[in-house]
């Protein structure tokens, strides 16, 4: 693993080949390590003890094993993709990417295997810095520099919260090892544990991009090279989810109901905000980045449902909801990294990822389109793909929770279920837009016809698409695995209350979609074959445009596609439009019409902009203190001394 870190900075010929081989090997290694953790016994070892007090400990258990396997899987796809993709980058960027990507992936693996606060924080910081380096690769563009700076700030606010979290734990005599936390934290008073949860939500949430800590993600993820975006959106935000799971389920123990309700509320808000902004986005990569916020929201809803079930003492339901969240972690990693890779191919082949400039890719890039379509259906939660399986499980656990429960629980669970349904519907609309406008229909821009990319860049998207279908058809194994992991974390759970719930039939036979799909597919094929003989052979004619010619100008665009949603959710978007007509002598026939429409990102505008202004204003005020005059500084010293004397004297 470490071999590839030792930067193969020479990016030519043999070294380049060697580097790619090593990256692929590293991915396989991570994957097998993950599988080892999942199916082997848990183990940990102390590497070194700093100053004899703080042991640096690493280890894997089922939970880290699961996330490691997810990491390895995505890494494999991106490493193969990188073989061809990095060849297109400028030389300097290639060196940077070639050096940083292995370090980035290794630091993510290190976060997952860390078993104490110090090594966790070191790995976490390494992960943040290497990913920052990868975001800033195209630093010549101002937009990229701004985005990366925002990312740096956001990630450090999060890191600060995490350091605070671990400092509080250490201050309460729990040391730094995770083993001590697992036993010690549940014994802390509830108020303190609630505080720890809130700090943890800020710390991990700012990395996982839970609303309202999401502002950096849609800016930072898309500007990185596409296979890095795939890693960041597919895995890195999952690392933060891992941290949250560790904190909430591994350490904090059973808490009051509002913890779970807070998680569910944050999750639902994230998923809705994510998908609503995604609908307004016309850049493919930014659209995908917003969908990451949505999917993290769905994962957090699943975690919240698990926490709620645990607080209510429903053991099996806890395991099921937890498995739903973990399954969605895997699923989102599969389809989102696949989508980012496909978007990268599109950008590579056609020079843009603006939906309004694309179109008609299905004819020139059939394989990339096929992968993108399948993955779109997966992310939209449609059967028989994997997104459906985990969203179905999440919905099931919410609906289960609402049965025979206190009115507050019913309200939260039912509203969350409805929120998820709305999210699913909007995601469907969004991906009809993304794949319909981007890949189908007429080509919207004249010029060079994009060509299909080379096989390394197809391997990832197509492989992940196949995996999306496979996981959707046979979700049982992963669901069972997730429930096992949940049971492994639940040693805090009072076992007596894990009364088995009467399960609906599909729960006990989770592979049922397979039979349905195979049966329906066979029947439809037979029917299609039978009907083929009845009619004359099909013909291809120009599209019918009410008698006039159908052209690119009249085709629906991404803006027009999402217009009605923009109008319906006006209160949320607060859209502003400007219409400029260049008049001629004929009033009804303007020479040119320019239409522009913008939506209002109110979290950015209302929360972060005032905070930023406030920060700048206070900084300006504080600057007055620094006059540069020696006498004044001596005065400050004396004043401070006086204050200290007073304080000590009392």
């Amino acid at each position, binding site marked *: 693993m470490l071999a590839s870190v030792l930067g193969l900075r020479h990016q030519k010929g043999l070294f380049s080949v060697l580097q790619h081989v090593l990256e692929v090997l590293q991915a396989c290694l991570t994957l097998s390590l993950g599988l080892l953790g999942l199916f082997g016994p848990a183990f940990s070892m102390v590497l070194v003890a700093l100053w004899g007090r703080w042991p640096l400990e690493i280890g894997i258990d089922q939970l880290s094993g699961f996330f490691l396997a997810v990491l390895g899987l995505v890494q494999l796809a991106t490493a193969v993709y990188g073989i061809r993709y990095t060849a297109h980058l400028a030389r300097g960027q290639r060196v940077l990417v070639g050096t940083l990507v292995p370090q980035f992936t290794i630091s993510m693996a290190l976060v997952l295997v860390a078993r104490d606060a110090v090594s966790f924080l070191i790995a976490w910081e390494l992960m943040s810095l290497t990913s920052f380096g990868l975001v800033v690769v195209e630093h010549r563009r101002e937009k990229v520099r701004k985005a990366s700076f925002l990312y740096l700030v956001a990630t450090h606010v999060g890191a600060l919260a995490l350091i605070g979290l671990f400092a509080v734990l250490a201050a309460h005599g729990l040391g730094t090892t995770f083993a001590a936390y697992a036993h010690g934290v549940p014994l802390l008073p509830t108020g303190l544990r609630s505080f720890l949860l809130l700090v943890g939500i800020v710390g991990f949430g700012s990395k996982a991009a839970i609303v309202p800590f999401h502002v950096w993600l849609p800016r930072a993820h898309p500007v990185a090279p596409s296979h890095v975006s795939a890693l960041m959106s597919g895995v890195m935000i999952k690392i933060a989810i891992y941290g949250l799971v560790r904190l909430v389920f591994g350490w904090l123990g059973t808490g009051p109901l509002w913890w779970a309700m807070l998680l569910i509320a944050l999750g639902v808000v994230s998923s809705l905000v994510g998908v609503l902004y995604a609908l307004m986005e016309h850049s493919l990569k930014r659209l995908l980045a917003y969908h990451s916020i949505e999917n993290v929201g769905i994962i957090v809803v699943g975690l919240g449902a698990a926490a709620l079930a645990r607080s209510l003492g429903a053991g099996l339901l806890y395991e099921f909801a937890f498995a739903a969240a973990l399954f969605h972690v895997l699923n989102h990693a599969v389809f989102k990294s696949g989508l980012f890779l496909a978007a990268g191919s599109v950008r590579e082949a056609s020079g843009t990822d603006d939906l309004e400039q694309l179109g008609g890719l299905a004819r020139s890039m059939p394989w990339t389109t096929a992968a993108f379509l399948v993955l779109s259906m997966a992310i939209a939660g449609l059967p028989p793909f994997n997104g459906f399986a985990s969203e179905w499980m999440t919905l099931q656990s919410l609906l289960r929770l609402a049965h025979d429960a206190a009115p507050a629980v019913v309200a939260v669970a039912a509203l969350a279920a409805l929120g998820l349904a709305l999210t699913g519907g909007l995601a469907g609309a969004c991906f009809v837009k993304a794949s319909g406008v981007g890949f189908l229909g007429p080509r919207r821009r004249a010029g060079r016809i994009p060509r299909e990319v080379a096989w390394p860049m197809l391997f990832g998207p197509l492989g992940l698409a196949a995996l999306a279908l496979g996981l959707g058809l046979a979700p049982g194994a992963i669901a069972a695995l997730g429930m096992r992991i949940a049971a492994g974390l639940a040693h805090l759970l009072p076992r007596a209350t894990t009364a088995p719930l009467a399960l609906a039939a599909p729960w006990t036979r989770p592979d049922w979609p397979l039979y349905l799909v195979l049966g329906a597919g066979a029947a439809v094929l037979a029917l299609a074959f039978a009907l083929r003989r009845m009619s004359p052979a099909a*013909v291809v004619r120009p599209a019918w445009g009410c008698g*006039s010619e159908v052209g690119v100008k009249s085709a629906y665009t991404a803006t027009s596609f999402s217009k009605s949603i923009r109008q319906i959710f006006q209160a949320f978007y607060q859209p502003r439009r400007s219409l400029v007509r260049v008049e001629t002598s004929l009033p009804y026939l303007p020479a040119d019409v320019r239409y522009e429409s913008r939506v209002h990102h109110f979290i950015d505008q209302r929360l972060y902009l005032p905070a930023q202004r406030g920060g700048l204003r206070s900084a300006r005020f504080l600057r007055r203190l620094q006059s540069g005059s020696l006498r004044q500084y001596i005065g400050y010293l004396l004043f401070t001394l006086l204050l200290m004397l007073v304080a000590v004297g009392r």
Partner: protein
Amino acid sequence: MAHKAFLIGRSLALRLVDCGSCNACESELAMLFGPDFDAQRFGIEMVPSPRHADGLIVTGPGTSQMTDALARTAEAVGAPRVVVALGDCAISGHVHRDGYAAKCGVAASLEADLQIPGCPPAPGEILGALRRLMRKGATGQGLAASD
């Protein structure tokens, strides 16, 4: 034409193309679908897209501005296709024949399977003619091969 015959025996879907009509034919045609004549009970319906239609029902003298549009619409209908010329204008151009903007009805570009004369033809006549067309279709007689 047995093939064509089977098709429109019980269901006839037509797409209206107005090639410069004065709209008298259209208003008579519209009467067909009200309570008095109720053409729908015989399986006759007007459809929005030529792709959904078994044929076209054309009105007007066939103005030059509509020539391309008519050709495109006719092309959009799959086989087999019937063409109905509704009203004197569509059949021959009537008073507009060889005028500055029109020629001689749809005959210039399309061969009509059915001609319904009149200026405008009464709804009853239209319905009767369409039903005759469907009956003829059912026995396969008297329909021009359009494909």
